[in-house]
């Protein structure tokens, strides 16, 4: 067996094991024969371990044979010759994707073990693991993607599973509302990503990152496109990354995502999914180098998000929101690092931050316990000494800053008031117009759905 063959098999296992898991969980629940808790947890274990071992194997072989980039071709899945389009499934193992995919496997595996006990006897046990499999597959595909459309595919799976997990407790209105909010923000990010992908296709006729970023394995790529094109495409990708990583002005969704069970908050919004935007920027980093304006925009966006996150984290009184904003701070810094042209530092930063935050979020219910033991060790109630900056801001300014941080920078309020509302108002207006027209044309009330009332709750339910 040649070395290429070994690479190919191992690479295939890395991608296929979460896909098989998803198929197993999905098909059984679709066919009305949901699996038991123990089987689900065993399947998840097997799948994660197989994927992780294969990824480690690839890493080992790459080190041993000094290969810096290993492509795994799965051929064209859709070819439209007239449009010069082909959907090319291709995965790449390189210095960026290998650490990231190993990280995904380690964290997801740990969370899987955690959740199998945490969600014991929970009616939504199977549903959680189905979304989990979806998420894992999305992460692996997005991470290893060798073409922009493959990456988009994984990116979508991650978004879908995240939104579904935020709305995991769908019997309460708040999780559903917040899940929809996350979903809407993701839509915007996806739209930007899609436009960027299409533009690249137009430029090159293909979506391979090799073609876009020029020759040489990551991070030594170099793009040869006009600065203006790089700027436009780069900005679009920046919007996509900002949506996924909750950078300004989309930061509002991050604390809202803490609606699901603790482990999902930990692994998704605390560590993996929130870094995916930064990962995208790393992947297309040669593009950033092509335009100074773009790099500056990335740095500015990262730093403002980080500063905002640091401020907002200071005023939060609940542990999960505080951790969410703390995550945002670090993601902002990571993005700024990328904008500065650093490559390995942000990667290390992502990995370290993801592990740390996962542990912190998992331990969030221990907060009281931890505070108690710290108080006992120190021998007094924990106090907060004002920091260096706090002492230098005048009283009025402090109150103002507190208010703005408490309101989370008014980001959500402003988006709602000036973007969402006009948008909704316009479509409602259109709806009214349509109804008026159809009423006129049919000469009577034309919409049957207007007559239907939602059923009232039966009085038997309560009391």
């Amino acid at each position, binding site marked *: 067996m040649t070395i290429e063959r070994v690479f190919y098999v191992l690479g295939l296992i890395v991608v296929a094991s979460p896909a098989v898991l998803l198929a197993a969980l999905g098909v059984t629940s679709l066919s009305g024969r949901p699996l038991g808790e123990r089987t689900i947890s065993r399947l998840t274990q097997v799948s994660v371990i197989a994927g992780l071992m294969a990824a480690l194997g690839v890493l080992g072989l790459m080190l041993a044979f000094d290969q810096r980039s290993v492509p795994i071709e799965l051929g064209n899945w859709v070819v439209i010759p007239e449009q010069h389009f082909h959907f090319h499934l291709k995965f790449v193992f390189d210095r960026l994707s290998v650490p990231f995919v190993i990280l995904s496997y380690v964290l997801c595996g740990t969370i899987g073990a955690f959740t199998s006990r945490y969600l014991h006897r929970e009616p939504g046990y199977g549903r959680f693991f189905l979304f989990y499999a979806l998420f894992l597959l999305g992460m692996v595909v997005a991470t290893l993607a060798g073409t922009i459309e493959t990456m988009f595919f994984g990116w979508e799976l991650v978004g879908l599973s995240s939104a579904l997990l935020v709305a995991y407790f769908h019997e309460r209105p708040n999780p559903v509302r917040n899940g929809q909010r996350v979903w809407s923000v993701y839509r915007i990010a996806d739209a930007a990503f899609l436009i960027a992908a299409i533009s690249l296709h137009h430029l090159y006729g293909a979506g391979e990152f090799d073609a876009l970023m020029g020759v040489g394995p990551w991070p030594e790529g170099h793009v040869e496109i006009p600065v203006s094109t790089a700027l436009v495409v780069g900005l679009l990708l920046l919007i996509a990354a900002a949506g996924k990583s909750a950078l300004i002005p989309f930061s509002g969704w991050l604390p809202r995502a803490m609606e699901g069970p603790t482990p999902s908050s930990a692994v998704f919004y605390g560590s993996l999914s929130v870094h995916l935007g930064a990962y995208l920027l790393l992947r297309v980093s040669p593009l950033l180098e092509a335009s100074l304006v773009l790099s500056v925009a990335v740095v500015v966006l990262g730093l403002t998000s980080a500063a905002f996150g640091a401020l907002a984290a200071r005023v939060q009184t609940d542990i999960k929101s505080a951790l969410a904003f703390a995550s945002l701070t670090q993601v902002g810094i990571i993005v700024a690092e990328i904008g500065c042209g650093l490559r390995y530092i942000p990667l290390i930063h992502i990995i370290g931050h993801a592990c740390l935050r996962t542990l912190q979020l998992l331990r969030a*219910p221990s907060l009281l316990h931890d505070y108690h033991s710290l108080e006992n060790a120190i021998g007094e109630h924990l106090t907060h000494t004002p920091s260096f900056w706090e002492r230098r801001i005048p009283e009025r300014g402090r*109150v103002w800053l507190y*208010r703005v941080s408490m309101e989370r920078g008014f980001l959500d309020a402003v988006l709602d008031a000036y973007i969402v509302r006009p948008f909704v108002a316009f479509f409602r207006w259109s709806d009214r117009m349509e109804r008026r027209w159809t009423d006129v044309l049919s000469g009577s009330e034309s919409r049957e759905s207007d007559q239907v009332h939602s059923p009232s709750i039966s009085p038997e339910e309560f009391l």
Partner: protein
Amino acid sequence: MTSLYNSEYGERADIGSLPHVAIRHAVEQAAHLLPSQGPITVFVHHNTLHAFEDLDFDEGVKAGGLLFGCHAYLPEERYRTKLERGRIRVTDLEAVLLDDLGDDADRLVAHFGTRYALRLAMLQFSLQTAEPAQLRWMIAETDALRRFREEVAPDVREEMIDKTRRWVMRDLQNGGAKDAPVIDVLGDVWEQFDRRSMDSWDDRTWEAFVLNFLWRVCHRGVGEVRSDDAHEDVCPPGQRHRDVLLAATGEDADLLVNEVLFRTCGPFLDQGFAEWEIPHRRQGLYQSFLKLHSQSFASPTSWSAGLRRETKRLIDLGIGPLDSIGESLSLLGVAEDEWEEYIKHSLLALRGWAGMVWQMETNAEWAPHPAPAGSLIEFLAVRLILDRLAAETVARESLSYVGPLCDLRESAASQIPSREQDGTDHRAFTVFQLAQVRGWKPEDLQNLSGELWSTLVHEIEAFSGLERRRVFHLAFERKYRNETLDAVIAHSRSHRDKGPVPVAEAGPAYQVVCCIDEREESFRRHLEEVDPDCETFGVAGFFGVAMYYRGIADAHFKPLCPVNIKPQHYLVEEPLYSLLQSDRRRTEARRRIGQVTHQAHRGTRTFLGGLLTGLLGSLTAFPLVARILFPRLTSRIRRLYGSIVETPGTELRLERVADEPGPEDGHVGYSVDEMAAIVEGGLRAIGLARPELFSPLVIICGHGSASLNNPHEAAHDCGACGGGRGGPNARAFAQMANDPRVRRLLRDRGLVIPEETLFVGTYHNTCDDSLTCYDLDRIPVLQRNLFERAKAGLDEARKRSAHERCRRFESAKTTLTPEGAQRHVEGRAEDLSQTRPEYGHATNALCFVGRREWSRGLFLDRRAFLTSYDPSQDDERSPILERMLQAVIPVCAGINLEYYFSYVDPTGYGCGTKLPHNITSLIGVMDGAASDLRPGLPWQMVEIHEPVRLLFVIESTPTAMQRIINDNEAISLLVKGNWVQLAVFDADTAQMHRYVDGDFVVYEPESTELPTTDTSIDWYRGWRDHLGFAEVGQMIGAAR
């Protein structure tokens, strides 16, 4: 409760003015209805519906359910499942129903039999109900009109078909149909059947014909019954604007309000989590809110701009909270006579936060940041300001309403879409189903007059879903109650018949005094099995030592006693005198490590600190993976590390030097007199007050629970210690009882403790079933052998107790050995991902007060609080019993009722599932990102509970018990209001009296059989569900 609002209040208007008094009064009234759970770190179980205790239980759960929108009993189908599974028997239903109806049981309902029979049928057979549309679908598309219901007895079915067939063939066919309406009805039925081939119809066709006919007859009969329930008031007094608007527009104004309130209450009540304190906190909630929201350049949207204008106006005009409430109410158009209702509903709209504000204001002087007096009024003022702004916004946007706010309610109410529902289908279907199971034939029904139909319908509707559930609940309780009383009587008889077994003529080898907690029941039972020569007692787990305690590694004093006692004494744990020097270094090391850890914790959430920790964060992958995959191993490593900075030997500073007790040096501890009083009280209460009763070794065993990643950890601790851990109390009691000076004093008071008797304090952790013994160095050499024997027994007993607990954990295999079970529960306690470290008080149902003799050897399935009491050492008026019950009844009832409500409505009264819980402000949990505070118990704690009211079986006489009930208001409320069940037991004659409506009635046992088993393990092994009573053979009659 006294008024707490008499301090200076910054009001412009005179303080005593009439509206202010009314508002204060209304707020205080409403405050009683708010959840009374304080900060979650000190969890005290109490009756969730404490505010309704002056009502009867059934009235109380109904009133509470209506007010809070919560269930009063389990849903009906849950009781039906219990009926199917035999947890409720039909005989229980019959007995309860007869009892409930009294003389009305035999009242005839038209021609349909007695009221009793009708109701029994309604209980036995589930009557399907559905939405009108769904009902129509069921009638049209399912077999409802083609086949009899499955429950209908075959003979009833046969008879109905047969009789109807005869009647149709005989009377209708042959011109007997002079009745026009029947012809009408039948005309519709005929259309669906081929009349000509009637002679050759098969059985199934006849069945369908009969059912169709029956359905039409029911439908026509019921259709003539007028609905007498008056239309609901569209806008009842005191209804909030938000509710009217929600009904009219579907827009929830509270969404706007809540968002702001969460962000106001959280920081205001924060006990030190946030890095930044809310500005102007000292000026109170109201001022702080106004000042924060009147900031310039911080209102980019119209909602925040409106809020800014309003808060600025209130500041400029200097309007105080009470005036602001008055102003808001008048702006909202709330008339003065509906203030009380309106304020009540406004406060209950976010009852978690409002309740916490009230608790922090009235009941949390020990907290780092209690709320100042008047905070709840300020909360209301803020709420009403936001309420009216939100109502205005919603009305403007969704109703295009621009008129004055005070007319909004009427205007919006007129726009609520009417939901007129024709109840005929629904009623007809109920009668139709009942007719099938009761065998009412269409020929009988079709002759009924309108009046009789009306009687029938009203009779059915009088036995509503709620009433049915009430009866089901009574039946459910009856079954378990009767089983318990039967078991106690039978066990006591068999014990008496066998006579005292002379196993240990010299008295018990050693004695163990545990808490009355029902989790110690299995521990005691197993201990008695392991070592039949030992004797066990139960007493409230603070052992009479009410104190503020500070352990060696604790920063603060904590009360360790029941909540209704305010401790006068302080106690500290110190390093042994010889270790004093070396301990200073350890304390310093602990402090340093603590500070560094604290800095690191905070640092990860800041800009630069986070950058640094983020870069090094990969290292956390090791603890992350290790703690989740190998919790037990990791905890050992952590403990090893912890032992470096822990003090190896400690002692209690028990004796006070100064006269006055207090927290300062020298004032800590007890005088010898006080110690003697405590020891005497404790020993007399459990009936260990004669020298011949003492064994050479008495082990005092406190309990508590420690688990990780569990915000509700304190809810598993000892209830008698006010949600604290009772180890120090046990240790202090033992040390006091060993003191020769105390013993001298006691001898003078007639309580002689034999010289050789030694007391040892221990602590039982009910989560990992570990046992810690205190002050072992003080055990004399002579007693060491006995102690080791006792220790071996205790160790085996806790292992077996862990084993018995494990049968309830689905994730523990039923094939575990006791050793494996011990490892399993140890892992549980240390596992970050474990949401059920233990099940706490779940399944509690009984409380026995009396000598252990009649409950020893009875398998109680960890469901009984066991209180030791010896009536032979008490006098006629039973003062010892009275003192004991003053604490035991309210505390146990509080635990039981909190579990009842959290189980019956896990999301309404309980705090729902633990999975999305988010600790906020260090005082409580929210659901997810932001929600109301969630008091009550999480589902994971109560899921195996069986909601029955606690049954007290007290060894006493009806007369003595009556006196105690009448003389003690707290007991009287609970007992007379039926919040608990009560029986008194005479162990010598094995006679039981049950308390029924104010009287003690002799209880006649249903059965005298009691299964026997050799050991507890044989009885419960391999079984996960609830288990019945059994006599455990080898323990009977041992010890004495």
